[in-house]
Structure formats: structure tokens, C-alpha cells
């Protein structure tokens, strides 16, 4: 095999591999949407985060704007402290509220941000004060049952 043809083929091979890498990084992976750009982190406290995990998406109006960076238990407030890494391109007002939501009925959980009306914007290290924890299905059901029982109890006396 001529050395030059050999080098040519190896060059083609390496180039193909590089294109595969680019495709994986930008077309398949999330490097195009913020994977490479800078982020700022804000913290928020939730009573209950349900099944929220690290790297869960942070969405606003359904658009991916960041990811959950870490989840830990706050021993002072006795609730969950969630750190969010938000894409530097998106700035949110200071009075933005965060809630733990579920995509679909049984889908993955994510953090939803609803922008407020404040002029001041959230900065690195700020806290989102208004939060809404995850809806726990058991509580929802028991509440529903309780209400139902109360309704029927008031109608038909003390029948359980």
C-alpha cells in the first residue's frame, strides 16, 4: 500500500470520526442548547420535591432553560434545598416562582419557572422565594377521599 493512499484513508477515517462527534454533540446531545454557554445558579427551597433528581430539566413555558444542579436536605429549615443552573441567556425577575411539576401523568419531574413582574433580575446565588412543592399522589387521593366522605357524611349522617 502506498504511503500516501494510506495517509489519505486514515485522514478520511479521522474526519468521519470527527463528524460523528459533532453530530453526537450538537444534533443528538445538548451542547447546542446551553451545554457550552455559561450558566448562573439560584437556590430554592421546597417542602417536597417528589422524585426530582439531579440534572432534571428546568423549564419555563415548556422551554428548557436550565437543569437541576443539586438536591440536598436543608437541616436548618427542614426542607429540600434545590440548586438550579439556569442558562445565562435567560434572565428571570426576582419574584419568579418555581414549582416541581410532572410531565404527563407518570412522566419525569421537572422544575417549572413562572416569571413575575419585578424589574430586578435574579443573579448568581439568589434565592427563588415563591415555591410550590411536588403534588404527592397519596395526599391528593386521601384529601379527595376525605372530602368525599365529609360530603356524604353531611348528607347521610355518620355512615363511614
Amino acid at each position, binding site marked *: *500500500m502506498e*504511503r500516501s493512499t*494510506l*495517509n489519505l*484513508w*486514515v485522514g*478520511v*477515517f*479521522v474526519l*468521519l*470520526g470527527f*463528524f*460523528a*462527534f459533532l*453530530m*453526537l*454533540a450538537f*444534533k*443528538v*446531545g*445538548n*451542547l*447546542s*442548547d446551553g*451545554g457550552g454557554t455559561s450558566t448562573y445558579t439560584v437556590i430554592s427551597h421546597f417542602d417536597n420535591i417528589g422524585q426530582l433528581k439531579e*440534572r432534571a*430539566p428546568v423549564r419555563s413555558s415548556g422551554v*428548557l432553560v436550565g437543569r437541576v444542579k443539586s438536591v440536598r436536605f436543608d437541616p436548618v429549615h427542614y426542607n429540600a434545598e434545590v440548586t438550579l443552573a439556569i442558562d445565562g441567556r435567560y434572565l428571570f425577575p426576582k419574584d419568579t416562582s418555581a414549582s416541581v411539576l410532572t410531565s*404527563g401523568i407518570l412522566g419525569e419531574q421537572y422544575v417549572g419557572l413562572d416569571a413575575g413582574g419585578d424589574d430586578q433580575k435574579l443573579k448568581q446565588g439568589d434565592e427563588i422565594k415563591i415555591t410550590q412543592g411536588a403534588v404527592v399522589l397519596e395526599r391528593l387521593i386521601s384529601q379527595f377521599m376525605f372530602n368525599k366522605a365529609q360530603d356524604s357524611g353531611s348528607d347521610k349522617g355518620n355512615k363511614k
Partner: protein
Amino acid sequence: MAQNALIRGLQQVGDHALKIVERMGAVMIFLGLILVHSANSFRRFGLTIREVYFAGVQSLIIILVSGLFVGMVLGLQGYETLQNYGSEQSVGILVALSLVRELGPVVAALLFASRAGSAITAEIGLMKATEQLSAMEMMAINPIARVVAPRFWGGVISMPLLAMLFSAMGIVGGFLVAVVLIGVDAGAFWSQMQSAVDFRHDIVNGIIKSLVFGVAISAIATFEGYEAPPTAEGVSGATTRTVVSSSLAILALDLVLTAFMLKGWN
């Protein structure tokens, strides 16, 4: 009698276990030796390029075709299962994550071990059997620096490239089946995939895996060739051992690496 047979059986198991550990140690020492004698492979990079051709370029067809088929099967199976839950648009996530995290590195490595690893072993083994390695030593040329190290680095360079090509090709295959053939929405296919596949945690980890597999396969293949008994049976046995032990090594390493990557490194 039965007791004796049992003891003998246990002895054999122990014997084998010891031999396996011994061989693993020998491969490690050999790997160290290669690293010590690697300067030549980079100073005269042409030597390594040649081996990238034989290990990488010549494995290209099998890797691309297998990747396409694996991706198509994933697309088909994924669609069948996911449509039961009404989330057939997530088929892109399933295809991409399985390929990038696991199947790309692992299947490409298994194919590479049987295609290129066995060829490396057979070539070095034959060079040894025909005294070409001894001839080199008598010419005051270290065969590890001149023959083994370039082949090792050729394999290490080729493996991640092949794994990425396998994954990319598989995703194209999944796209063909799910979007073109079945009619899943193309936009949903890609956007769901993008929102689920993380560059650092999925793609970079997959590349790290394939790099580790590349080191393991190349070290085993060159070791088996270099240590092969200089006979026809010796070389054929060494070739078989390369495929068997590197396949096992790939799967075992994959478990360890996956566990670390999911739990975090510390």
C-alpha cells in the same frame, strides 16, 4: 471417591483462577512496557498512522453496517414498546441513550476485538513464529518499540472514533425506521433526544468508555501475539484467546465504568 473428584474439581477451578490472575498481571506489566517504549510511536507517527489504517479504516465497514442495523432494530423495538404508553415520540431518546451510553462503545469494542484485535495478535504472533522479532532484536531494534507500541496506539486511537461512528450511524438507523418508515414526527424525534441526552454525562462518558476498551483490547491483542508460542497452533490459540479475553474484559470493564459513571466518581 466422590470426595476426591470434588476436591480435584475445586483444585482445577483454583488452578484456572490463579492462571487468569497471573495472565492479567502479565498483561498489566506488558502494558507498562509498551508505555515505556512508546516514544517511537509518536516521534515517528507514520508508524502509528499505518496501524490506524489496519485497525481503524479496515474495521470501518463492519462498524458502520452493524451500527446501522443495531439502530434500526432499536428504533423498531423501541417504537413497538413505547406506543403502548402513547409516548412513541420518545423513541429518539431510547435509541440515542442506549447507543451513546452502552451499545455504541460496547458493541463497537466487541466487533473491534474480533476484527482488529485478532488480526493484531495473528500478525505479531506470525512475526514471532517466523523469527522476524528475533531478527529485529539482533539488529538492535526493540520489537516492543518498533512493532508492538505502534499497533497498540493505532488501536487506542481507532477505538473511540469507531465507537462514535457506530453511535452516529445507529441514530441514523433509528431515525430511518422511526421517522421515515413508521412516521414519527421528525421534530419531536430530534428535540426529545436533545433534551434527554446530556453532552457531558452521556456522550463524553461514552467516549471515555470506548477509550478504556481501546486500551484493554490493544493491550490484550499485542500481549497475546507477543507471548504466542511460535507455532501454527500457538498463533491460532492466541488469536482465539484475544477475542475471548478481550470480550470478557470489555463487558467487565463496562460494568465497573457504568457503576462509577452513574454514582459519580467520588
